[in-house]
């Protein structure tokens, strides 16, 4: 099994798609940091004082207007989290200075790109094997299909998770460096670090989950295009369902993705799904997709 996993990881990292995403991601990060750094300046003492006052008043202001949500049982954590989210919009940081504290928001904002990467990774890394018939070759080396399946899916899911986390880490470190040189590290405290890591892991997990879904579909349909097409069709269907019945949407995949990704109870209330329900829905869907893909892979002839 270890030998098969080694082979799969070698195949994974040899794919031009993986190299392309890594190089493209690093280039985008570099361009973003250079642009952000060139437009930023160090804040003045007065600006920093105003920011401190604004941030200090944030929990009190939030407590007066709303209650904590169920996803964050500890009210203080919830309030801190909302303050972090409002960091820029509420003027806690000087507008003309690049602030490291906005990193969680940057990660959440860029999650769409990472999820798209996960979707394409899953579809392509499995579908291409069927397209090029290299799955046939692989199965003439290893007849135990459960091993091939576990190695392949494991590689796709873990590989996607690792790549997204790596790009997030590089982006975060780049932002820290740029903010230290050309902006401010104000607000980047212990809570900020915990929230940032949590969001980065969530984004990577959702991207990996997206990869698991499309990889499962590609394994069943034996095609990259079919996996992407079916997912697009599903999201169209989901939009339709939401329009027809806006209240019964706890089982909708896209909404569960959004709620899990944001981990934000205000969003939870807005969408009508709490965090636990979204996790349960995603786990159920992922489980069903992976099991169905395994059954199809292990029982169907390879023609």
């Amino acid at each position: 099994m270890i030998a098969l996993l080694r082979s799969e990881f070698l195949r994974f990292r040899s794919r031009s798609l993986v190299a392309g995403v890594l190089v493209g991601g690093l280039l985008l990060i570099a361009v973003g940091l250079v642009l952000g750094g060139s437009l930023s300046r160090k804040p003045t003492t007065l600006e920093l004082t105003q920011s401190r006052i604004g941030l200090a008043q944030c929990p009190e202001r939030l407590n007066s207007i709303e209650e904590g949500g169920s996803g964050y049982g500890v009210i203080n954590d919830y309030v801190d989290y909302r303050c972090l989210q409002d960091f820029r919009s509420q003027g806690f940081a000087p507008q003309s200075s690049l602030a490291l504290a906005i990193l969680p928001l940057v990660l959440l904002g860029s999650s769409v790109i990472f999820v798209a990467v996960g979707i394409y990774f899953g579809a392509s890394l499995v579908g291409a094997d069927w397209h090029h018939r290299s799955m046939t070759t692989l199965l003439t080396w290893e007849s135990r299909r459960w091993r091939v399946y576990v190695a392949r899916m494991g590689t796709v899911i873990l590989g996607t998770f690792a790549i997204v986390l790596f790009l997030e880490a590089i982006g975060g470190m780049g932002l820290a460096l740029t903010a230290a040189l050309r902006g401010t590290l104000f607000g980047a405290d212990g809570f900020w670090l915990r929230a940032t890591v949590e969001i980065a892991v969530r984004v990577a997990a959702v991207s990996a989950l997206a990869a698991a879904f499309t990889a499962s579909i590609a394994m069943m349909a034996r095609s990259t295009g079919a996996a992407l097409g079916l997912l697009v069709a599903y999201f169209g269907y989901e939009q339709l369902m939401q329009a027809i019945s806006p209240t019964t949407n706890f089982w909708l995949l896209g909404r569960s993705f959004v709620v899990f990704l944001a981990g934000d109870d205000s969003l939870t209330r807005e969408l009508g799904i709490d965090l636990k329900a979204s996790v349960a829905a995603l786990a159920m869907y992922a489980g069903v997709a992976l099991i169905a893909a395994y059954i199809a892979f292990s029982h169907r002839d390879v023609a």
Partner: protein
Amino acid sequence: MGYAVEASEVRKRYLDIHGKWNIALDGMDLQVPEGGVFGLLGPNGAGKTTAIRALVGLVRIGGGSLSVLGEEVPAGLTRTLPRVGAIVEGPAFFPRFTVRRNLEVLAKISGVGRKGIDAALERVGIAERANSSAKDLSLGMRQRLAIACTLIKDPELLIFDEPANGLDPEGIVQVRELIRQLGAEGRTVFVSSHILSEIRHVADRVAILAHGRTLASGPVESFLVEGDMTGLIVRVADASRAIPILAAEGLTAVEIPDEDGDSLRVSCLPDEAERVTRALARRDMYVRELRPDGSDLESAYLRLTAEPPPEAASS
């Protein structure tokens, strides 16, 4: 004699999108002796590729029994596959990977190192293209890469499905030579093809498959000399005079109208050629040409495969 492959009454059918069962293998029997080159000959759609897929466990058979290197398929595949190298329906690998990377990905599964990969590349003559992208290789080179992929396991049994498909004459000769060498090393090489000349040039033994059934099997020589022997074609100066001479010897001969009027078809066994020539020579009639009638691989193949396919069962 030990058998590398044994198949008995193997059946396989597929359900098509119209709900109709298509029979791919209809009671195929096969015995491939260990060592040498065995050719599986049959027209397109005969069931050759399905047979190969069944041998390596890519498809599950619907009936009969199948064993490879003494192990039942699919139960014993885990033990068998490390000893088998197979190309199923042409070369298949990642076109954007280099030649070496394609081999490395597979070699890791068997724990084969760099030396094994280099040896396989040298063996098939593509070592100098090791760092080329697989998509940039010619069809012949790709076929050789596919063979290299099978060789890194150092297998006892090699299975090549239509190895000459799409190759130019030079490529065909190279692949043919490689197959002969592999067979001469004591490995068993199982080659399927619909090209008669390919099988005739490389194989020691041959089986003819059509409509999912084995129609004939045996050494290639048996097809070339006696396999389908039905008589002799004899060319003489005066065919009409030769007929009563042969009749006096108890041999039935008929004139062949479409062969310039001087040829006869004599109904006899191959070892009676001497009797024919002696009878004619005694009456001062000398044979200009004598050859077996319908006794070559082509004739056997064409006659055997010309039979109509069985009725497909409907669901």
